[in-house]
């Protein structure tokens, strides 16, 4: 029992092992929703395709469920994720789009932390008064505004006002190789300063909208964690020592409140990822979200293999974000036993 280094390793390994059944469950549930719930889907998925393709699909669905699942499972593991209606294989597209989405989500998470958490502190500081009410209106507005409305408002009205670009990752194709496929990181690696600024100005608006929409949880959790901490004796004694208000709030109180607020990472991961679907479409960001938006094909035939891949990738993303939040919580909170 304790918190030595070996205990930490065991703690993290245990969390990983607990992850495996959840991942398996995610894969099974996706299979159930996409394969078992569909009734004679072949003609719809493969509209305008040759009869041979449709018959092949029908033959696949005539197989017993176990065989179907096994085929689906092994294909998923081997990276053979099928092809889109245009004949483009799904796996390479998703794996090259993934870093762009990761960049967007991580940036908005940072914005959420650096704006949402201080707002929560302000709300707790002025609890029950106008500062509190103002913050509440702000985060509930983010909560109540549909992602696409926020994105359209930002792209049509806010962007011209701030002089920010609204489409893509760069204004012109970059002259340097894209090592990581993350726009800002690539520009920094190439030591290309103008392109770094350009990439950042493309990133900030979509990430900002996403952060504003998902900020509510961070602010709300920080506020209630702060409200729980503020009446404690150690905060009072810090005040009595004559420390400034800022130091008491942000160095003494917030440090403890943040432990609770780490759960935000897990809670908002799903919302952030789902938000990318609309945000990336509106802002022309070349990530998985924009790909997910396109799987329905807008009247044409749906990209069925792509839809499965997108669901699995997003669900795994949420599971991993929760794992990270869980481990972080265990590390930060000294009350958690690692074994």
């Amino acid at each position, binding site marked *: 029992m304790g918190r030595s280094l070996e205990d930490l390793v065991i703690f993290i390994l245990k969390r990983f092992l607990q992850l495996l059944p959840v991942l398996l469950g995610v894969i099974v549930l996706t299979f159930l929703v996409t394969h078992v719930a569909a009734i004679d889907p072949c003609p719809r998925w493969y509209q305008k395709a040759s009869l041979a393709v449709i018959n092949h699909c029908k033959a696949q669905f005539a197989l017993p469920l176990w065989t179907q699942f096994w085929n689906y499972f092994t294909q998923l593991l081997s990276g053979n994720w099928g092809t889109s209606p245009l004949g483009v294989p799904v796996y390479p597209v998703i794996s090259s789009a993934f870093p762009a989405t990761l960049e967007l989500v991580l940036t908005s998470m940072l914005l959420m932390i650096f704006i949402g958490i201080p707002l929560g502190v302000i709300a707790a500081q002025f609890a029950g008064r106008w500062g509190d009410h103002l913050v509440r209106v702000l985060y509930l507005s983010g909560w109540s505004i*549909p992602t696409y409305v926020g994105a359209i408002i930002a792209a049509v009205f806010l962007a011209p006002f701030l002089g920010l670009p609204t489409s893509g990752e760069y204004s012109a194709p970059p002259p340097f190789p894209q090592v990581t496929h993350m726009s800002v990181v690539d520009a920094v690696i190439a030591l290309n300063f103008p392109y770094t600024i350009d990439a950042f100005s493309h990133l900030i608006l979509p990430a900002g909208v996403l952060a504003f929409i998902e900020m509510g949880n961070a602010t709300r959790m920080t506020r209630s964690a702060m409200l729980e901490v503020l009446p404690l004796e150690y905060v009072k004694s810090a005040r009595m020592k004559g420390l400034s208000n800022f130091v008491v709030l942000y160095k003494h109180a917030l440090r403890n409140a943040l432990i609770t607020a780490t759960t935000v990472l897990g809670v908002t991961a799903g919302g952030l990822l789902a938000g990318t679907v609309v945000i990336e479409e509106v802002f022309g960001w070349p990530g998985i979200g924009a790909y997910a938006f396109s799987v329905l094909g807008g009247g044409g035939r749906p990209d069925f293999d792509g839809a499965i891949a997108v669901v699995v990738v997003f669900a795994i993303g949420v599971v991993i974000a929760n794992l990270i939040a869980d481990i972080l919580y265990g590390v930060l909170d000294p009350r958690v036993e690692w074994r």
Partner: protein
Amino acid sequence: MAATPLKVRLHRRGSGGTPKPVGRSVWRSVRGLYRVMRANPLTFIGFVLVAICLVLALIVIVDPVLIVPYGASQNTGVYKEPPTILNWPPSIQHPFGTDQGGLDIYSEVMLALPLDLGIGIGIAAFALVAGGALGLIAGFWDQPRTLGGALSLVIMRTTDVFLAFPSLVLALAIVASIGRGVWAAILAIMITWWPYYVRLVRGETLAVKHLPYVTAAKAAGVRETRILTRHVLRNVLEPVVVYFTLDIGTVLVTFSTISFVGAGIPFPGKVPEWGSMMSFYQQNYVLSTYWWYITFPAIAIFMSALAFSLLGDGLRDVLDPRTRRALAESSSFHEPPPEVPQPAAAPDAAESEEEAIEEEAREEGAAA
């Protein structure tokens, strides 16, 4: 002001031992609601907005002619003829303007109200009942190495799996596999929404289960199912219903987003829906010219979601005992602390509510 606490206390003490008639408890909850409203003006605004939404929706269901002048796209009949002025900006006759197809946008937005609210409330209610029941079971029978413990473990692991799916993305996959339609969108949200309630109710149940009055009921030989429904459920209900209120707004927004990506009710059709309306206009028209096409449905979604969020968030603040205590204490940072002994934690929700009211009353007394 100073006389109020005394009166309240006398009243409470008088009704202490005898069984309370139903009328009084209804009266108390009304008065509790009034105090909540007065504590935070935003909660009051939320309450009023929710009431307006519900009343308008009721009117549209019962007798739409009263507030919907032009009827839905394919539903003339009792309504006036559809407007002949196409593509007209907002005016007195058409407050939200008309579109290229001659639809009165005000009428469309109003006709969509019952459907959108119904979907929000219906899906959240389904999640509340399904998730709540599972959470209650998982929380109440959680001893390891028993049948209930095994069941509880299965429920919690399944919940973890379902929690991993963002509803929007799952909706895309469901629509890709079973085809477009309102049921695909509803199914996607229903599948992904209940796990939150399992978590919430399980946590509350675990906390309530070990309180002395439950142990006392067990010792008195009350059947387990009766303890669950009579003693545990009633105390779990309050925070869950508050979360439910907050959730209606979130479901509304999520459903409209799913509609927007093209997985919902087709528009124009028999019944308009805000999300699909906006999706249709956004795809087919230049919005910077025809701004009124999309502005009014957007405001409708935003206002109705904000209404439920304001109400739910305010209620949650008041009913969460930790925040409530902290709110009471944090305001004393800036004022001399009132000399009030901390009330002991009461096991019964009704009693703790009483104490909260008393506590509030005392503070008012101190402030006056």
